[in-house]
């Protein structure tokens, strides 16, 4: 009973009909995702439709979202199973080796997209001409930075990511006597003047006069969430009050514990690097007589003490710098062409699409050669007959 059912399922999973259904679903997802970008922005729509197993939708009047469509991750998973099942069916003969290589190449391509979806980190680096920068910054994720600014030359930066803040509770900061109690975290909030008669949970800093109203999170490129949190730093059994840390508050706030001054700042999450880039020159060339861009390029000095490296690199459009597992693309510019913004992508599976292309190309060539040889042989046989 079970065996025939399993066989039936296996047969269905590797059927061409299933492939066609999955491809149709993918096409529908591409269309839906493109339309959704108007409201959700590129990253939001890609996460909701392409990098999820189920597409959820919140209907008004319902307290929870409902699944409305299979996500591209689920469709991709079934497509991979379908492809692997089909690949296993291909006879391991020389005559079919080309086809086998093409299928393996496609499986590698799908695997690459799964690796990118799960492990890729997108950040950016903004550098002005003459400036040296040793960190990349997230586009959307925030951190509560607790910075020990006591040393006049060095800052000890302790970064609490928004994922940890959203869980709330006490977060001990390793290497310091501090514990930060997260009273309440808002992924997006609007700050306003506290109306008379109302009180704020904050007791220190500028927080006591501010009303914080939670807002739905935004995903469009042009919009920014204003992450905010009420936090209470404690150390040595002493509370330093409840502070409001918010991305909407520009000036950092500080308290002092046993001679150490700690600043609190909610900001876009930073990832410091063991190397630094100095922007030596930024070029924005246009076609003569027009404003049409011809070339953007950043000449950067890469200084990496651990590798004893100090060299110049030119990053320009379609010619990124791949360095220490990260890829730096020329992405934007500003400040009268004295600021360069590099888009930084870290994808452990970046090589997989290239491997896939090579496998598919070799597979097609091999298959073509085999078919050509067979065809020539047939023609020869016909002549001889």
């Amino acid at each position, binding site marked *: 009973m079970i065996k025939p059912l399993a066989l039936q399922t296996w047969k269905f999973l590797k059927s061409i009909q299933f492939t066609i259904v999955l491809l149709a679903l993918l096409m529908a997802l591409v269309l839906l995702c493109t339309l959704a970008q108007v409201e959700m922005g590129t990253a939001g729509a890609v996460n909701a439709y392409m990098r999820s197993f189920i597409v959820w939708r919140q209907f008004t009047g319902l307290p929870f979202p409902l699944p409305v469509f299979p996500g591209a991750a689920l469709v991709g998973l079934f497509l991979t199973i379908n492809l692997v099942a089909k690949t296993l069916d291909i006879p391991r003969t020389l005559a079919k080796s080309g086809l086998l290589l093409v299928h393996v190449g496609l499986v590698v391509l799908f695997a690459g997209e799964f690796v990118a979806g799960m492990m890729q980190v997108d950040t950016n680096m903004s550098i002005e001409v003459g400036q040296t920068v040793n960190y990349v910054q997230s586009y959307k994720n925030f951190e509560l930075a607790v910075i020990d600014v006591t040393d006049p030359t060095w800052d000890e930066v302790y970064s609490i*990511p928004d994922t*940890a803040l959203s869980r709330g509770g006490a977060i001990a900061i390793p290497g310091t006597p501090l514990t930060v109690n997260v009273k309440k975290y808002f992924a997006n909030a609007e700050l*306003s003047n506290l109306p008379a008669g109302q009180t704020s949970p904050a007791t220190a800093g500028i927080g006591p*006069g501010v009303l914080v109203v939670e807002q739905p999170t935004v995903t469009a*490129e042009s919009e920014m969430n204003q992450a905010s949190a009420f936090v209470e730093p404690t150390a040595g059994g002493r509370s330093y009050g409840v502070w409001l840390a918010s991305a909407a508050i*520009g000036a950092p706030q500080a308290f002092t514990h046993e001679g150490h001054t700690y600043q609190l700042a909610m900001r876009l999450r930073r990832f410091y690097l063991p190397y630094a880039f100095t922007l030596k020159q930024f070029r924005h060339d246009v076609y003569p007589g027009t404003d049409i861009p011809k070339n953007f390029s950043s000449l950067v000095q890469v200084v990496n003490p651990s590798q004893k490296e100090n060299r110049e690199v030119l990053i320009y459009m379609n010619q990124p710098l791949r360095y220490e597992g990260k890829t730096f693309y020329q992405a934007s510019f500003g*400040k009268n062409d004295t600021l360069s913004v590099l888009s930084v992508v870290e994808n452990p599976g970046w090589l997989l699409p290239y491997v896939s292309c090579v496998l598919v190309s070799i597979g097609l060539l091999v298959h073509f050669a085999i078919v050509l040889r067979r065809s020539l042989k047939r023609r020869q046989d016909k002549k001889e007959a």
Partner: protein
Amino acid sequence: MRTLLAGVGLGLLALGCQRDQVAHYRVPRENQGAPGSPRPTAPPQPMGERTGMPGGASDVPPPPTPSAKAALKWSLPKGWSETPGEGMRFATFKAPYGGKFEATVVVLPGPAGGELANVNRWRGQIGLPPLDEPGLAKSRTALKTRAGALNIYDFTSEGKVKSRMVAGYISTPDGNTWFLKLTGDAGPVTKAKSDFTHLLESLHLD
């Protein structure tokens, strides 16, 4: 095969946990207000599409309630009207021009984080990078008013759809800091700038 899958699973789990943990970095001291100091920034836009959005009302710490004596006063240009502020605003102006822009007054206690931090926050709101002290001095226009010295800043963003911000920054004798901002799409802001400058010139205390 099972061992491999378990290994991959544990690896992903470890990676997920690592992303959640408190990270520690020891970094050379940054200059306050210099590029990279703690501040919210707009994400960079793709090449040629750097637009920036004018900031809303929720971008500043809470205002004190200025006493009637210390409150800043102004003369409205012809056709302009004024409504008392909502949220953190002291007042909002309505100008007789079309387009996407707004004129607001915000009052903050004390130095409100300093001129450089505030100017850089405004620049961030229209997608511009921060300035340092010499850059701030260069972009400042000083204006003498009956309420005291007023610093004016005028910034325009990059990109196809440009945003512009004209902002007046003034401290009153009671220690409060006042911001008068005209922000929005560059076209309508340019149209309203002359009126707004007259409003800034008319600032007084009594």
